[in-house]
């Protein structure tokens, strides 16, 4: 039972500009993502203009949340249309699968509708 449930849930990483975090969070809540955690980091990607100005770093935030596998495509579509993740430098999103969870209660918190 549990193994089947766990396969259904994905951990979603979203790396965006720090200014956009609140907007992205609000949109993610509409798309059935759960249990948000935010990390603050900085990007190291080089772009020509930034290099000329002497800035190689940009402030980024990483949003961790749990999404059901069915909803991943909806979330990605939303990120594509609203925030244009297809274009370089706008942001990156990716999912990893979960191996195990610390119990049924934690599973409920992570995914309310299962």
């Amino acid at each position, binding site marked *: 039972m549990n193994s089947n449930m766990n396969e259904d849930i994905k951990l979603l990483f979203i790396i965006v500009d720090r200014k956009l975090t609140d907007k992205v969070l609000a949109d993610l809540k509409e798309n059935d993502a759960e249990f948000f955690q935010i*990390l603050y980091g900085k990007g190291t990607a080089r772009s020509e203009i930034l290099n000329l100005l002497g800035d190689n770093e940009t402030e980024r935030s990483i949003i961790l949340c749990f999404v059901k596998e069915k909803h991943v495509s909806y979330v990605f579509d939303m990120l594509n249309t609203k925030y244009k993740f297809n*274009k370089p430098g706008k942001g990156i999103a*990716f999912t990893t699968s979960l191996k195990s969870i610390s119990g049924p209660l934690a599973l409920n918190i992570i995914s309310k509708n299962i």
Partner: protein
Amino acid sequence: MENNIQYELIVTILNQGYAEKAMDAARKVGARGGTILTARGTATKKLEKKYNFVITPEKEILLILTDSKQRNDIMKSIIEKVGLTTKGSGITFSIPVDEVLGLSLISSIPSSLDTNNKSKSYLDSKYDNLYISTGSINETAKKDEPEVIENEAEPQLEETIEPSAQPQEDIQAVEYKESIDNDKLNAFMKSKK
């Protein structure tokens, strides 16, 4: 398009200040970009009890998302530069990633120039122009690092060797006259003795 290439997330945990060196090492092998997080280690409980004050080992976490073909090269070059044997004391591991959004550029370039060497040379030449345009800044930054290390290493050797070979007065004489030949120096030494 993006489903054809498998991606992996390379996570490296380093001492603070070494994440950018690791990123430079990864860039040489073909990584495009990464994000740096600041973190805090927890491995010094014994030391805290010994010395009675709190030690917070500051760490950095570097996340790089790459094609799984490039993964081995990137991890190797990172470990060579800031592995556990160096001051960076870095640990790297990779996590499989299921679906990716936002790396359209990376997937499009290798497919158009699929032969391995050509794609790399294309990228290199592209970045070479970049280095030239901002060359003065980059070169000074790069040249500073190894010089500092060499200066740290060399004086220790000189200090250990010279005092045993020569008395202290003679060291000063040698330092002032650096261009003296060995024969003249020996004659100078003999005259003093």
